[in-house]
């Protein structure tokens, strides 16, 4: 059964190559996108933390996004 699945009556090379290329491309794009997102979140949270207390309070109060990124970042560390 496994041999049949791999060989696919002589079409195995074409079928498995198609599925493998698709899977590898999708996995690579997922990994790269996730890595970039994490890096931006980390850098953004760091920049907010580096602000003076007064400015940080102003940013967190006025921006929902900043407060959410900051809270999710502090959960991960």
């Amino acid at each position, binding site marked *: 059964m496994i041999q049949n699945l791999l060989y*696919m*009556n002589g*079409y195995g090379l*074409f079928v498995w190559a*198609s599925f493998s290329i698709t899977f590898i491309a999708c996995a690579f*794009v997922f990994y790269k996108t996730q890595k970039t*997102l994490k890096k*931006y979140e980390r850098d953004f949270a760091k920049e907010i933390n580096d602000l003076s207390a007064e400015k940080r309070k102003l940013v967190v109060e006025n921006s929902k996004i*900043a407060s959410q990124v900051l809270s999710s970042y502090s959960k991960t560390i």
Partner: protein
Amino acid sequence: MISLISPSNIFHWVGKLISFINSIFFILLLIALSFALIFSPPDYLQGDSVRIMYVHVPSAWISLAAFTCIALMSIANFIFKTKNLTIITKSIAPLGLMFTCLAIVTGSLWGKPTWGTWWAWDARLTSMVILALFYIGFIVSHKFILYEERANKVSSIIAIIGLINIPIIKFSVDWWNTLHQPASIKLSGVSTIHSSMLMPLLLMFFVMLLYCALIFLMKYKTEIIRIKKKNLKRL
């Protein structure tokens, strides 16, 4: 109404949606792959090589749908000048390019056992290559034009011109005598594909759509944070 879909209002939901898709994606992928590679029957004429359809056709559908979305949003952006639309189109474009390339490569892998050649400069294949070039033009204009407003204008023009290519791709198999087979699935009219193959195809399409949604949301989130980061520097 427009303020309801502003980045700051939906940012929280974007994160929740990413987690939800992540939680169900791999189960659905396994089910779809089992149907595509094991349970679906071989074609009476093409044999097992027909299984390539389960990655080739959804990739082609997504590439066409993504470009149509980008072009329509670019037209809307010209009229309404909404920043959110620019972020959305920028997030969709890399996905569209990837699926266009996948449709071309898997099509070539299907072409060899079916037509006896990896490549032919026929109408459908050539118009897909042109679509990939439009995607590249769109992405490159955002990457290399420094002034954001000018980059938006150039990329929008590229997308709107590229929209002409979409019906050419769709109807190329009807208008010209090509190696590529005509459409088997029709929205209006009777489809010529058996349900035992249609079901795995739609399942694979759904899984790939979920993947697109996941990548799109992550890219969208990244873009929003990038803009917020830029604004933070102005303080």
